[in-house]
C-alpha cells in the first residue's frame, strides 16, 4: 500500500547522517514477527541499511519519542512523520514539550496502515512472512502457505476514516503534499449516541470490563507525556491499582480521555496498542466531536500555538445542561 519505499527513506537518512545534519534517526525496524514493527534509534548508515523498514505495519507515531530523545543531546535527531504524526508533533510543540531546534522532521505520505488482527482474522494464525504488492498483501503462513489479500480490506479502522493526508509540520517533505480529507470518522460515535443510555452502558461495560490496566494506551499516547502521570502519583488519589471491578477501569479511561481532551489529535495509537482491542479512540473522538459541535471545529495540532478549547471560553458557550439535552436528542 505505501507508495514511499524503505530505500528512499534509508537513502535520505544516510545522506542526513553523512552531512551531519543529524546524528541519529528515529525509525522502524522489524521485531519478532514480520508484522511486529518496533521503533528504533539508528546512529549509522549500516544499521539503517540492514534494519530500517517502512511498510504497512509502521503505524507507530514517533512524535512522543521526541520528548525524551531531544533531551539526550543538543544535536538534531531525524524523525519520519506520517501525516497524523505531524499533528501530534505540532501539539507537543504547542505544549513546549521538546525543542524544535533539536529535530529534523521529514514529512512522508501515508496510504494507510494494515491491522494485523484483521489479517489474522482473514488468514488465521501462524503468520511467518508478509509483503505488499500494490493493493495486495501477501501473507505467508505456517499452515496454509502464501495467501493474497486485499490491502484495503485489512486497513486499520483509523486509516479507513483518515482525517488528513496532509503533513502539517516538517523541515522537508518527501513524496506528494496530501490534503485534509473529509472523513466520516464520527460515524461510530454517532451510532453510540443514538443508542439508549442502557444500551450504551452495556456496550461500554462490555468493552471496558476487558481492560487489564496495562497502561499501554497511556504509554503510547502522544498527548500523555506528563513527567509524572497522575496514575503513578500516590498524592493524586487515583494512583494506579490493579483492576478490580466495575468502576476502576472506567474512572481510568474517563480521566485519561478528559486529560487529553482538546489536545488529542485523534491519531488512534491508543486503540492500536490495546492488547484487549478496546476501541478507546471512541472516547477521544466523542470529546473531539463534542468540542466541534459545542465550540466550533477544532483540530488539535493543526497549527503550533493554537489555544486548546479547554483553556479557552466564550461568553456564549452552551450550558452543561444544554450539552446533555443535545445528547438526548440524538
Amino acid at each position, binding site marked *: 500500500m505505501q507508495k514511499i519505499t524503505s530505500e528512499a527513506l534509508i537513502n535520505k537518512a544516510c545522506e542526513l547522517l553523512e552531512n551531519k545534519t543529524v546524528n541519529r534517526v528515529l525509525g522502524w525496524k522489524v521485531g519478532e514477527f514480520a508484522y511486529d514493527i518496533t521503533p528504533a534509534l539508528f546512529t549509522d548508515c549500516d544499521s539503517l541499511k540492514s534494519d530500517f523498514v517502512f511498510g504497512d505495519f509502521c503505524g507507530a507515531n514517533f512524535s512522543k519519542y521526541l520528548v525524551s530523545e531531544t533531551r539526550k543531546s543538543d544535536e538534531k535527531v531525524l524523525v519520519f512523520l506520517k501525516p497524523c504524526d505531524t499533528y501530534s508533533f505540532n501539539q507537543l510543540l504547542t505544549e513546549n514539550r521538546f525543542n524544535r531546534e533539536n529535530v529534523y522532521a521529514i514529512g512522508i505520505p501515508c496510504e494507510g496502515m494494515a491491522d494485523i488482527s484483521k489479517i489474522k482474522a482473514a488468514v488465521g494464525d501462524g503468520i511467518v512472512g508478509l509483503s505488499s504488492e500494490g493493493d495486495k498483501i501477501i501473507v505467508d503462513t505456517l499452515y496454509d502457505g502464501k495467501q493474497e489479500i486485499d490491502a484495503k480490506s485489512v486497513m486499520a479502522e483509523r486509516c479507513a476514516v483518515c482525517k488528513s493526508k496532509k503533513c502539517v509540520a516538517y523541515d522537508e517533505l518527501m513524496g506528494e503534499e496530501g490534503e485534509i480529507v473529509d472523513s466520516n470518522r464520527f460515524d461510530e*460515535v454517532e451510532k*453510540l*449516541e443514538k443508542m439508549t*443510555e*442502557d*444500551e*450504551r*452502558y*452495556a*456496550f*461500554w*461495560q462490555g468493552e471496558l470490563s476487558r481492560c487489564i490496566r496495562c497502561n499501554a494506551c497511556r504509554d503510547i499516547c502522544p498527548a500523555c507525556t506528563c513527567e509524572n502521570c*497522575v496514575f503513578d502519583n500516590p498524592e*493524586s*488519589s*487515583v494512583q494506579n491499582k490493579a483492576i*478490580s*471491578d*466495575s*468502576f*476502576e477501569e*472506567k*474512572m481510568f479511561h*474517563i*480521566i485519561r*480521555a*478528559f486529560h487529553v*481532551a482538546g489536545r488529542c489529535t485523534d491519531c488512534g495509537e491508543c486503540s492500536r496498542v490495546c492488547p484487549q482491542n478496546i476501541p478507546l479512540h471512541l*472516547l477521544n473522538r*466523542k*470529546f473531539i466531536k*463534542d*468540542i466541534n459541535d*459545542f*465550540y466550533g471545529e477544532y483540530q488539535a495540532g493543526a497549527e503550533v500555538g493554537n489555544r486548546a*478549547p*479547554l*483553556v*479557552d*471560553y*466564550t*461568553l456564549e*458557550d*452552551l*450550558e*452543561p*445542561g*444544554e*450539552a*446533555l439535552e*443535545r*445528547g*438526548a436528542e440524538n
Partner: protein
Amino acid sequence: MQVNGEYKPLIVAFCCNWCSYAGADLAGTNRSNYPDNVKIIKVPCSCRVNPMFILRAFQRGADGVILCGCHPGDCHYTSGNYYTRRRMALLFSMLNFLGIEKERTRVEWVSAAEGAKFAATMNEFTEAVAKLGENKRLEDLRCKR
C-alpha cells in the same frame, strides 16, 4: 445509598465560596428546607472542581453530583465559571456517552442572593436522582462496606 433498608440518594454539592455557598447560607438563614441527603463541599470557585472529584464521589457511592457557581459574568475571579462551563459540558456529555443517566449530573448557577433558588434546586435535583434509583453504574463495589 440504602438507609434502614430504604433508598435515599446521596448528593454531593460543590459550591463556590463567593456565590453559591453564600446562597446556601441564605437558604439556611431563610429556613428554606431541602433534603439532608445534600452535602456541601466548599471550593473557592467552581473552576476548582476537578472531574476527578466528581468521579470520586460517584465511585464512593454518591448518587448525584451537582456543581454550583456564580452566574456567568459574575465570577469573583472574572472567568473561572466560564472554564467550569466548558469542562462540565464535556465531562457530563462523556459520562452520558458511557451510559450514565444524564439526570445524575448538573451544573447550576446560584448567586449569593438566591437562597430560595438554592433550596429549590436541591429539592428538584434530589427528586430527579431519587427517581433513577441507586447509582450502580459508577460505583466501585470495593468501597462499599
